[in-house]
């Protein structure tokens, strides 16, 4: 879309949302806009000035019968290339045709609620609620949109059904089941039938264990695409121990929207992850995550992957400090790095943000090297606005001296109608 059209569209959308405030009943209208601008050199040392605008608006009526949602963004580069881009991420409504009984929704949605996994699609759907709304059964039909493919071009039609159930308890058992049929608009691509089942329950015994299970089955390929089980343990209120095991496999069907997994792996992957998190004080938390992966690389060769992460988050009065150390290892090499980010509030209306990320890597394709990233931002708040101005300095294999100027303007407001 041209930027002029984008502008007109933006104008129309905003004017759609303003009357809500006036015309709709009691509810909460949330609006957020983020404008980002940067001045920098690209890897060919040419000046670029990308500008992004993201806008989102959401209206939820207090009685939960109406929910309107919109989200879009556009991109222009006035100085550099004449590139521009407009993306509509979401534009949908959800309405209780019969309160607490039947919900209809439609429009462009992007969420994991009805589909198996996260999906963006243009759809219509109908949900029915039973048992004091603890059971929801619904169906949808729509066209899948993939942002990465020629800007939300349609590749496939989707129809599906889903159900959600929860028992009547403080810590209920959640069950979810989904089925979807995908018909590609591309010649020679086979239709795909996917089903999923999930469950989750916290037990009120010592250590308050929470058990999670998510699984996906590909009926067309007759294989379990994913089975993931999780166990979260809380031995004390300050200590959390999480375990995840999973098996995963997607198959390439030689289309341009093939899953990344199928490009890298030829077969099944198994993963185990463990994590401990300790709340030393409510303001000082540390966590350690370790993961091990193993998958089929070629017909007979398997590859291994390791991930380790140690992170600290510290929140003394007026400060927000995050510190993280990470390690990855695969047959592609290894990566070792550390990152620290600090935000300090100054008086009530200003903040300063500094961050440093240093990464050391050793890859099979290139020699050992380092990448540095330093950012410094000043922020000032007004009632609904926040302006951040600053810069970023990078030094890496592509550019040894890369200085970027950044500005960000955020608008956030929540308006109540009572």
């Amino acid at each position, binding site marked *: 879309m041209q930027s002029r059209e984008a502008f007109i569209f933006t104008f129309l959308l905003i004017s759609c949302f303003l009357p809500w405030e006036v015309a709709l009943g009691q509810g909460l209208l949330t609006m957020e806009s983020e404008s980002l601008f940067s001045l920098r050199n690209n890897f060919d040392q040419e000046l670029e000035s990308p500008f992004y605008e993201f806008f989102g608006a959401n209206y939820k009526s207090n009685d939960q019968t109406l929910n309107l949602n919109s989200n879009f963004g556009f991109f222009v580069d006035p100085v550099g290339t004449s590139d521009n881009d407009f993306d509509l991420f979401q534009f949908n409504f959800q309405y209780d045709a019969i309160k607490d009984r039947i919900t209809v929704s439609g429009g462009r949605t*992007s969420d994991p609620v009805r589909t198996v996994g*996260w999906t963006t699609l243009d759809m219509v759907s109908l949900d029915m609620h039973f048992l004091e709304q603890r059971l929801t059964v619904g169906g949808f039909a729509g066209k899948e949109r993939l942002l990465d493919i020629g800007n939300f071009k349609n590749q496939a039609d989707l129809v599906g059904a889903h159900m959600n159930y929860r028992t009547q308890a403080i810590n209920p058992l959640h069950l979810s089941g989904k089925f979807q049929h995908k018909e590609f608009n591309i010649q020679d691509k086979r239709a795909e039938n996917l089903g999923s089942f999930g469950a989750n329950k916290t037990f009120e015994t010592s250590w308050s264990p929470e058990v999670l299970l998510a699984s996906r089955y590909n009926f067309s390929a007759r294989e379990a695409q994913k089975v993931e089980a999780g166990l979260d343990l809380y031995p004390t209120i300050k200590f959390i121990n999480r375990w995840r095991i999973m098996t995963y496999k997607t198959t390439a069907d030689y289309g341009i929207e093939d899953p990344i997994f199928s490009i890298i792996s030829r077969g099944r*992957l198994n993963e185990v992850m463990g994590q401990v998190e300790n709340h030393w004080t409510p303001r000082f*938390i540390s966590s350690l995550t370790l993961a091990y992966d193993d998958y089929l690389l070629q017909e007979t060769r398997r590859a291994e992957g390791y991930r380790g992460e140690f992170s600290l988050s510290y929140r003394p009065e007026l400060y927000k400090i995050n510190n993280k150390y990470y390690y990855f290892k695969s047959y592609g090499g290894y990566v070792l790095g550390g990152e620290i980010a600090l935000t300090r509030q100054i008086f009530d209306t200003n903040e300063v943000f500094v961050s440093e990320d240093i990464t050391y890597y050793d890859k099979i394709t290139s020699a050992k090297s380092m990448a540095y990233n330093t950012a410094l931002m000043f922020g000032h708040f007004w009632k609904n606005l926040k302006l951040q101005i600053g810069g970023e300095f990078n030094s890496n294999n592509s550019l040894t001296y890369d200085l970027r100027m950044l500005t960000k303007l955020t608008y956030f407001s929540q308006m109540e109608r009572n």
Partner: protein
Amino acid sequence: MKSYFFTIITSLLISTGTLADSSSMLPSIMTKFDHQMHEEKVLPAFGISCSTCHNFELNADQKTAKANPNLATSAFKMSVKEVCHQCHNTEAPQYRNVPKSCAICHSDQAAMQKIKPKNHENTAWKSTHALNAEVASNTCFNCHITSQCVKCHVRRNDIELKNHSRNFRFTHSVIARAQPQKCDSCHVQTFCVRCHLGK
């Protein structure tokens, strides 16, 4: 209209000031509480009397009230949180028609921060929320709106990175080969082809 109660009873409520300390969310929540609406529409429907929440009881004449001994220190029998949550944050079936979205009361950002679930703390949540969301994504939207998720899941911009770090560009080959399944939630092949032309 039972507003004449207010004149009578306000004189009994010596200090409601003990309710709120400076860091509390209460002031902002209380501005949303419509006593009269609850009194007219809600309390009779549920058969709830003034004394369920308050430290006083109405006398039989329904016009005068009898104070409990501790009314001087608090107008309430229980914490205000419990007062509101007994209907607005419960699984109890008799309250199924009560609005339950946490955002009605904990609406502004500061108030929402305070009720952030425990599993959200620290950076670890970024790598573990996927499973919770797959099983019970509807529970997330009691507090969230999808545009918060879209920032990482769908949106793309290279000025302020939301999901990766600046240095990630130089190391993604190693990471993609360590955990190749992790990229599927957000990218398909065309995205990579953009930079990897020859593939």
